[in-house]
């Protein structure tokens, strides 16, 4: 919902969410799958350097999503 309002005001918004079906259903246009409900942008179970890599990958993907021109809702899947 917040995402929709941000976009309505003219700000492209990338949403990092673990509940991707809900994000898509409610109408977010750029959805990036998060790492977990309790920790969308990280994972404390990982080794610290692995975790840092994961955080960077997710945030980077969100930034890439913002740059991309899209015509319809897109789910930016993680490849790693």
């Amino acid at each position, binding site marked *: 919902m917040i995402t929709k309002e941000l976009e309505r005001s003219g700000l492209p918004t990338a949403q990092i969410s*673990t*509940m*991707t*079906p*809900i994000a898509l*259903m409610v109408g977010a246009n750029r959805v990036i*799958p*998060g*790492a*977990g*409900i*309790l920790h969308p942008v990280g994972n404390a179970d990982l080794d610290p350097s692995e975790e840092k890599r994961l955080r960077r990958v997710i945030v980077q993907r969100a930034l890439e999503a913002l740059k991309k021109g899209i015509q319809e809702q897109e789910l930016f899947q993680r490849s790693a």
Partner: protein
Amino acid sequence: MGLELNVININDVQFGELTEIKESALYINRSELRDLLLEDERLNKVEIEIAHPGESCRILQVADVVEPRAKIEGPCEDFPGAIGKIGRAGEGKTCVLRGTAVVLNDQSEAHDLSQAEDALGFIIDMSGPAADIHLYGKLHNIVVLPYPAEGVSRDGYRVAMKLASLKTAKYLALAGNELKPDDIEIYETPPLTEITKGMEDLPKVAYIFMVHCTSYPAIPGEPVLYGDNIRLFSPTIIHPNEIFDGAIVNPYDGIGTETYVIQNHPVIKELYRRHGKDLCFVGVILTVSRITEPERERSAMMAANMAKFVLGADGVILTKASSGAPDVDLAQTAQRCEDLGVKPVLIIFDRSNRGEVGEVFNLPGARAIVSTANQYETLHLPAVKRTIGKRVTLPSGRTCGGELDKVFRFIRGGLDQEGITNIASVRY
């Protein structure tokens, strides 16, 4: 695998010198039970109270409800893995004290009460409008109030109190083991290789049972399935009898279900009742709700695979555990089933307070939904003469024993995941 439940109807519960059953009344040796429960060093005090249907009485901070049951014969101890040795549940004979329940009161700090909206936690009223909507107000309840010992961690207490309720359930039902039962319920289904014999023309129906939601932080040592905490859990086929006979204990954070409901599982009972008549009950798949998208997808896919390619189901009933996030697991699993040609039906409570249906059903496969009532319907509860549990005054000034407005969600048995209540939401 065959299970015989020897049901003894109980119409009164009192304290007495011996724990025994005489003329359908259960007498409890209070100090013997108390001593048994205090063997667990995590507890330093245990109170035991009795509440009768019709009494002007409110039970507060209810963490779980368990039906008193004890094995008479069979290959396992009671609640195997939780309080008994690990062994096969669902076979042999089990004594059931019907008409009673062990109600577990939670003496955790108010802010630690799982899922609660205030310090009252989940309540049971023994009379009045709340007693009408849920079944626990109609039972003779033995309320167990365990208190944590000094220095026991929050999670340590949560496990200890759960075990106390199971031990009580077993202790009470042992009083009935030698008696002639009032009713005998027999549950028997053969393995898949034989189950459809003579039922080739009947539709095959399976049940996908979500028992736990792993969104909540793990409670180490918490018994859920045969004593295991089932966190990284893949969909698993289990015999329905195991569910009736103590293999599954409701998780501490699990709302809308109690161990009592699992022991008397309405969906499984109904499938058994109609097995061989208008359907063939081919089996049960257990799942848990997962916290990442790949885990959810995997679980949904595997559960649907099992339903279609292992159990051979034509249709499947699905229920869920807990609150919002599992809606997605539920819908995804239903969609995967639909994709494979296994027709899904979902049982779910209505969560909105604006007359709309719950959140996540824009997946086209999740079309057939049975409602178990809106969790935000408000009941105005009258003042009561007696309360059992931690006495609190709410910030609004209302006292725990006074008049209250409570929504179904916070009344034990008012929020129902498996369809054991007598209420539903209807849209006109």
